């Protein structure tokens, strides 16, 4: 998409959306379409399949939700569209977007995700909601066990959206995805839309075998990171990371900022949460080892700024749109550079500024090099946290808190995390 086109199209109506839709978009304070919206909306309205890649926070959800609702208003029926996402929180967020957009057309939707009551979901599916937003695992579970009435609606689906396509189109989700697609309409009778900030090679290869697909690519690698993001790193030994983290987040200039701390394991998230709690930082955590209700609660707390710091695993790395996040800390460096892109994409969304800090330990050199190569940018050192500051303020305190937290966790779970599955609440 060239800049001249971007300048020309100033409203959603010019893209072919109905007046009511563009009005409800305006009421959501979305006045001008973004690049990916300009590119994808007309093509989807034309009835083409689509692969959409655009950097994080650039309005991909609207790019598929708006044309779907436009088509839906022309011919409303039973299950019209199915949206598949990799995480439950993302499903709820997309559902909110659909609700806001479709308020004027009396849109009914169902969120089918794990960790919630299955029978209630089966009943909701039987009522033929207009839009189903689901995680593949639970939807496949319904297909297997909830009976024909529940899934009959899925057989006439007009739209299938696969959000975060590169994550969903991996072997981990493959079986569930296949099961879902088997009951749905054949590909030629439905429109299939794939969206992600990072599109893998295997997905891109589809373009060659299917000529009819419209592809909106991320122009080059560097653009998958927003330009307003300030990327920094701290090179520190593994065992003092916690102290650095505490120092970093309690710096006077960071004291008011909302931050997400990404870790690689649920246990780490839980330990960090306890450390912060003992330091009187308003903190909450989001990972797979707490119940779904607690997950929703803690995300809600963070969104409402009742908690300043969110310690999360990769369940929060994709898609979540929380405007208040000003800082992303990578406490662990992810193995996949794409995950890094998604993680730091939680901040600096929709033109806002943001900063990201990666904690690079002695074991992470290769990983950080791979990330820098993928992002196409060399990170700069974060200078505000110094060794002497850490030693003076937080080192001993944090290490004590950490040991205590570890022992408490061990006692509560008395054995492996998997065995007991859940942490104590609160």
């Amino acid at each position, binding site marked *: 998409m060239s800049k001249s086109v971007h300048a020309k199209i100033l409203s959603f109506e010019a893209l072919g959306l109905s007046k009511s839709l563009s009005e409800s978009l305006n009421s959501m304070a979305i006045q001008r379409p973004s690049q990916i919206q300009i590119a994808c909306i007309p093509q989807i309205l034309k009835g083409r399949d689509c692969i959409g890649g655009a950097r994080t926070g650039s309005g991909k959800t609207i790019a598929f939700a708006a044309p779907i609702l436009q088509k839906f208003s022309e011919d409303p029926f039973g299950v019209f569209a199915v949206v598949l996402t990799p995480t439950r929180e993302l499903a709820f967020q997309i559902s909110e977007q659909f609700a806001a957009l479709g308020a004027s057309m009396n849109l009914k939707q169902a969120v089918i995700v794990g960790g919630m009551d299955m029978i209630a979901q089966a009943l909701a599916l039987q009522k033929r909601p207009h839009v189903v937003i689901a995680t593949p695992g639970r939807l496949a579970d319904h297909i297997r066990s909830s009976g024909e009435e529940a899934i009959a609606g899925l057989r006439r689906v007009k739209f299938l959206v696969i959000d975060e396509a590169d994550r969903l189109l991996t072997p981990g989700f493959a079986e569930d995805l296949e099961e879902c697609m088997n009951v749905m309409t054949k590909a030629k009778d439905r429109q299939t839309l794939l969206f992600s900030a990072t599109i893998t090679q295997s997905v891109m290869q589809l373009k060659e075998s299917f000529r009819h697909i419209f592809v909106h690519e991320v122009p080059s690698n560097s653009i998958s990171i927003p330009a307003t993001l300030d990327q920094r790193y701290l090179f520190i030994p593994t065992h003092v990371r916690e102290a650095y983290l505490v120092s970093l987040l309690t710096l006077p200039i960071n004291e008011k900022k909302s931050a997400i701390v990404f870790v690689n394991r649920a246990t780490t998230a839980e330990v960090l949460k306890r450390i912060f709690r003992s330091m009187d930082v308003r903190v909450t955590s989001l990972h797979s080892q707490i119940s779904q209700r607690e997950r929703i609660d803690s995300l809600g707390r963070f969104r409402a700024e009742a908690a300043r710091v969110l310690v999360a695993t990769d369940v929060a790395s994709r898609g979540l749109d929380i405007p208040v996040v000003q800082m992303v800390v990578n406490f662990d460096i992810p*193995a*996949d*550079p794409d995950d890094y892109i998604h993680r730091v994409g939680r901040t600096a969304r929709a033109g806002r500024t943001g900063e990201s800090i990666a904690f690079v330990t002695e074991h992470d050199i290769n990983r950080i090099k791979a990330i820098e190569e993928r992002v196409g940018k060399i990170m700069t050192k974060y200078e505000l946290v110094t060794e002497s500051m850490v030693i003076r303020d937080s080192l001993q305190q944090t290490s004590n808190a950490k040991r205590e937290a570890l*022992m408490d966790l061990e*006692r509560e779970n008395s054995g492996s995390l998997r065995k007991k599955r859940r942490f104590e609440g609160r």
Partner: protein
Amino acid sequence: MPDSRKRDWFATEGDASDSEPHNSDDQNDVRPQRQSVVKKVKQIANVKKSKRRETVDNNEEKEESRVITAAKGSNKRTRKVDSILVSTRKDESDEENDDDSEQEQSEEETDDEEGLDRDGNAKGILRQLSTTELEDNRAKIEKSGVVYLSRIPPYMKPEKVRQILSRFGELDRVFLAPEDPKSYARRVRFGGNKKRNFVEGWVEFKDKKKAKLAASTLNGNIIGGRKGSYYYDDILNIKYLPKFKWHHLTEQIAYENQVRQAKLRAEISQATKENKAFIRNVERAKMIAHIQEKKQKKQAKTEHAVKSESKPVPSAGEIEMRRNFKQRNVVMQKDTEETMERVLKNIFA
């Protein structure tokens, strides 16, 4: 004679505690006034002591011991399950200032005291028991017996359990394990009963014969009593625990606590060591950096003097590689599987 008196007391108490509100009021009174209760405990410590020594014949004293257990009960409720057993100690630690009351601590309790956190504490110095007292205590423990209740009727309180069982003989300590706080929270959330529920319990009889009698009589039978009473139809599940004394219950927890404390101490000292190493390294790094800076300056100076175009040679310290760390692997592209390929093929056609 004592038996008849007990029955008498039982009847009156039974009438009083069958009406639940009275009982719960009693409870509520006790809770905020725990401090005062503890004081009361101090005052009556002498009485309590004599009560343990001889058989009690006084109704009033019974009444007071009930207050004590209630206070203990309220203690219990505020703690976690595993720490409760130790809570009976709490009252006694307050008594410690009172010289007379020290004697009343039985031998096994003294052991526990020492095993617990008051090890080596000046406050915890206890008067040595005389040989006769020791013998006395040992005999008492020998004589006592513990019964186990595998289930407590819904919302039955320790007082009620005490009341039911004291029909058979004098009781010493009662412990009921409260239900899981999660299940309590769940029940309350869904509009259930807000009263505390207990799941199992242990009761110590002063005389094990009486304990055996109570177990064989009550086990598998309805509680009975007044026909309309709340627990009339409830069945008790009660077992005498042969060769089991009360200290067996507390020992385990005291031991676990001790182990935990020791472990935490060790962990923290380990952490301190690591921190010190880190601080040392930081200082060394600063020193080396400083030296190198100086060296470079010097080098630059001399180089400038000798030859301006030669490149600055990195000093030895800079290129010295002290240690190699194992690097974590980078996962670039996930391998596609058979199913994955099928999915990708079917996705658009």
